[in-house]
C-alpha cells in the first residue's frame, strides 16, 4: 500500500505530483491569496489523503510519505508552483509529529488516522493575553480530578480556531516551581461544552486568528499528551517542527515571483537596481534553501531539532520581509489600491501585511536572537526555555 517515494527519480516524482495536481486540484482553488475555509479546501485535502500524500513528513507506518528532506522540499515546491491551496493542516504538520513522538499507542491509533483523513482540523492554543513571547508564563488553568481535566481561561491569536474541530493547548496544572514546570499539553475537542471562539480580523482583512474562551470545559485525562505537568517538553519539540516549517523558503520564494511580476508590470526590468535586487532576492531564497536542507538533514538523522534552528527561522522570515518591501516599492502607487487580492495577481500591500506575521509567530525573532545568544553561543546567563 505504501510506496517508496524516495526511490522514485526526482523527475518522476515531480511528474507524478504535477499530474496528480492537474487531475484533482480544481482550477478555482489555485493561486488563491487568502486561506479559504475548510469547506472549500477539504476536497483537495481528502484527495491527497486518498492517495497517501497528505503527510509528507510522517513515517510510512502512520500513513505518511516518509520523504527525505530534499524530497520534502520538492513536494513543497511543486505544490507552491501549482498554486495549490493553503490547507488547515496544523494537525499534519505540527501535532502529528508530536503525537508520534510522545503519544501512547491508543493516542496514535485514535488521532493520527483522523488527522490524515481530515476528519479533525486542529488549531494551536498557546498564546494568552498575558503570555505571548513569554509563553511559559501562561495561566489558562487545567484542574485534574480523577480521570477528567477541566480547563478554564483564555487563549488568543489562535490561528483558525473558528474552523477547527480540535485544539491542542497548553494549560497550567501546577503553579509552584519554575514556570516551565506544571504545564500540561491537552488535546481538546472544540465541541466540548464551555468553549467560545471569537475571530479577530487582521491587517490584511482576513479573519485568520481568534480568541478562545474556556469556561470549565472538561475532557478525559486520556487527552493529555505526554506527562502531566511536563507538557513544556512536548510543546518544545513541536515548536522545533513549527520553526523548521516557518524557516522553509516557500514564502520568500512566492514573494520573489511576485517581485519579478511587479518589476515587469512597472517596466523596471532593464534597470540595474532592480536586476540586482532580483538577484539578491534569488540568493536569499536559494541560500535559505541550502540552510533549510542542512537543518532538515540533521532532523532526519537524529529526529531532534537543535536550538540553532532559530537562525533558520530568522533568515527565512526576514528574507520574506525584505523581498515584500521591494515589491511594494516597485509597485509605487500601483500598490495603494485597497483591493482584495486576485488569484495569481500581485498584491504588494497584502503580501507586505502577510510578511509581518512570520517574524512574530513561532517565537518573535527577538526571542530567537535571545535563544541563539544565550543557549547556543553561551552569552549572559542561561535562561530555561
Amino acid at each position, binding site marked *: 500500500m505504501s510506496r517508496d517515494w524516495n526511490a522514485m527519480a526526482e523527475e518522476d516524482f*515531480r511528474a507524478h505530483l*504535477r499530474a496528480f*495536481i*492537474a487531475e484533482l486540484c480544481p*482550477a478555482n482553488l*489555485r*493561486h488563491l491569496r487568502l486561506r479559504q475555509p475548510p469547506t472549500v479546501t477539504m476536497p483537495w485535502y481528502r484527495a491527497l489523503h486518498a492517495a497517501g500524500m497528505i503527510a509528507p513528513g510522517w513515517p510510512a507506518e502512520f500513513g505518511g510519505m516518509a520523504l527525505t528532506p530534499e524530497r520534502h522540499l520538492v513536494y513543497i*515546491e*511543486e505544490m507552491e*508552483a*501549482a*498554486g495549490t491551496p493553503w490547507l488547515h493542516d496544523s494537525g499534519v504538520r505540527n501535532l502529528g509529529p508530536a503525537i508520534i513522538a510522545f503519544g501512547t499507542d491508543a493516542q496514535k491509533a485514535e488521532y493520527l488516522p483522523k488527522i490524515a483523513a481530515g476528519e479533525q482540523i486542529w488549531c494551536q492554543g498557546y498564546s494568552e493575553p498575558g503570555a505571548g513571547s513569554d509563553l511559559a508564563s501562561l495561566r489558562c488553568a487545567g484542574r485534574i480530578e480523577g480521570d477528567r481535566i477541566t480547563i478554564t481561561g483564555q487563549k488568543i491569536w489562535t490561528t483558525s480556531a473558528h474552523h477547527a474541530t480540535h485544539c491542542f493547548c497548553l494549560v497550567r496544572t501546577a503553579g509552584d516551581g519554575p514556570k516551565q514546570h506544571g504545564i500540561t499539553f491537552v488535546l481538546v475537542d472544540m465541541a466540548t461544552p464551555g468553549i467560545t471562539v471569537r475571530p479577530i480580523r487582521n491587517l490584511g482583512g482576513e479573519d485568520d486568528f481568534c480568541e478562545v474562551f474556556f469556561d470549565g470545559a472538561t475532557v478525559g485525562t486520556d487527552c493529555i499528551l505526554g506527562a502531566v505537568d511536563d507538557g513544556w517538553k512536548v510543546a518544545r519539540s513541536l515548536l522545533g517542527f513549527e520553526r523548521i516549517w516557518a524557516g522553509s523558503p516557500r514564502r520568500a*520564494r512566492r514573494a*520573489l*515571483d511576485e517581485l*519579478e*511580476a511587479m518589476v515587469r508590470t512597472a517596466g523596471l526590468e532593464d534597470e540595474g537596481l532592480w*536586476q*540586482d535586487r*532580483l*538577484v*539578491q532576492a*534569488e*540568493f536569499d*531564497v*536559494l*541560500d*535559505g534553501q*541550502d*540552510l533549510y*536542507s*542542512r537543518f532538515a538533514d540533521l532532523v532526519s538523522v537524529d529526529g531532534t531539532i537543535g536550538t*540553532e534552528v*532559530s*537562525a533558520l527561522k*530568522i*533568515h527565512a522570515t526576514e528574507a520574506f520581509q525584505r523581498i515584500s518591501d521591494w515589491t511594494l516599492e516597485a509597485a509605487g502607487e500601483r500598490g495603494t489600491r485597497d483591493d482584495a487580492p486576485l488569484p*495569481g495577481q500581485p498584491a504588494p500591500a497584502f503580501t507586505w501585511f502577510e510578511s509581518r506575521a512570520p517574524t512574530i509567530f513561532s517565537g518573535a525573532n*527577538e526571542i*530567537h*536572537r*535571545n535563544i*541563539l*545568544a*544565550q543557549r*547556543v*553561543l*553561551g*552569552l*549572559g*546567563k542561561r535562561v530555561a526555555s
Partner: protein
Amino acid sequence: MIPLDPDVSRMIADSVARHAAGQATADHLSSLQSQGWLHCALPEASGGLGFGVDAAALIAGGLARACQAEPVATCFMAARMLALVAPDSPPAADLASGRRLVALADGRVRVDGGRLAGTLTHMPLAEVYLVVADDALFAVSGGVEQGTRLDGMPLATLDLQHAEATRLSQGPQAAEALRQVRAEGRLVVAAELLAHAEVMLDITLDHMRTRQQFGQSLGHFQALQHKAADLYGAALLSRAVLDAAIARAAPGLAPDDLDRLACRAKARANDAAMAMARGAIQMFGALGITEEGPLAPHVRRVLALVPLLGTSAELRRAYARIGRVLKRNTSKDQAA
C-alpha cells in the same frame, strides 16, 4: 573529478588543522610545498594528487584560520588550469617540484600581431604566470613587484608586451578551463573568507564572555547578544551555502551551473566576512581598531580577499548575465 571520500577529507582537515595550530615557520612556502598542498590539484602523473576544489577548500579554509592560506588559492588555480589543458608542460613540473611559484593571471589580455598585449595589475607575485588569450594558454614570466596588498602580500604588475611568453596549449578548451577554474577559485577563496569570519566570531564571543563592563560580561547585554546572534546566523548561512556548493561542484557540473553556485557562494561569504569584520571590531571597541589587536590580520585579509574574483555586486551582475533560475511559474502546470 572524483570527490574526496569522507576519510580522506578528515585526514586532510586534521593535518591542515595541526599545521595551522603549530608555530609559523620561517619558510612558510616550502612547508606548504612539502605537504603537497600547493600542487595537489595536478594529476598524479604530473606529480600531484589529482585533488579538486573540495580538497583545496579544506586546505585553504583550514590554513586561513591561522592566516596562513597564502598562496593556496593562487596555486590551486594554476595547478587546476594546468591539469585541465597542459598537464605535461614545464610550469606543471615547476609547480610539482616547488622550483618556481606558478600563478594564474586573470584579466583582460589581447593578442596583437602575434604578441600578447596589455598590462595585468594586482597580481600575486610569482615566477611564472599562466595567461589565457586568443584561445590559447601561455606561460609568461616577468612580473614586477609593485606595492603591497592590505594583507601584507606583495602585488605584482605584468606588462605583457615586454614579457617572455610560451604557448602551452591551443584551442577553445583554454577559455573553457579558465571559466571553470575561476569558478572553482571563487569557492576556494570563499572557504578562506568564511574561515576568517568563523575565527572572528569565535574571538568575539570569547571577548564577550570575559570582558567586564558595568559589573557584568558584555554577553549579558541584550543589545550585544542580538548583534552576536546575527553574526552567528550570517556565518551559519554562509557555511550551509558553501558546503552545499562544494559538494555539488566536486563531482563536476555544467559550466553555467558551476558559475551560478560559485557566484552565489562567494557573494554570501563576502557578505558574511564583511559583516563579521564590522561587527567584531565594534564589539571589541578600541582594541578592535588596534593594529596589534587579535582581529587585525583577519580583517585585513578579508578586505583583500573580498574583491578577489569578485565583490558581491560583481558576482550578482555575473549571475544575472548567466540567468536567474527561479523564474516565475517555471513549473506551472497546464491546468492552472
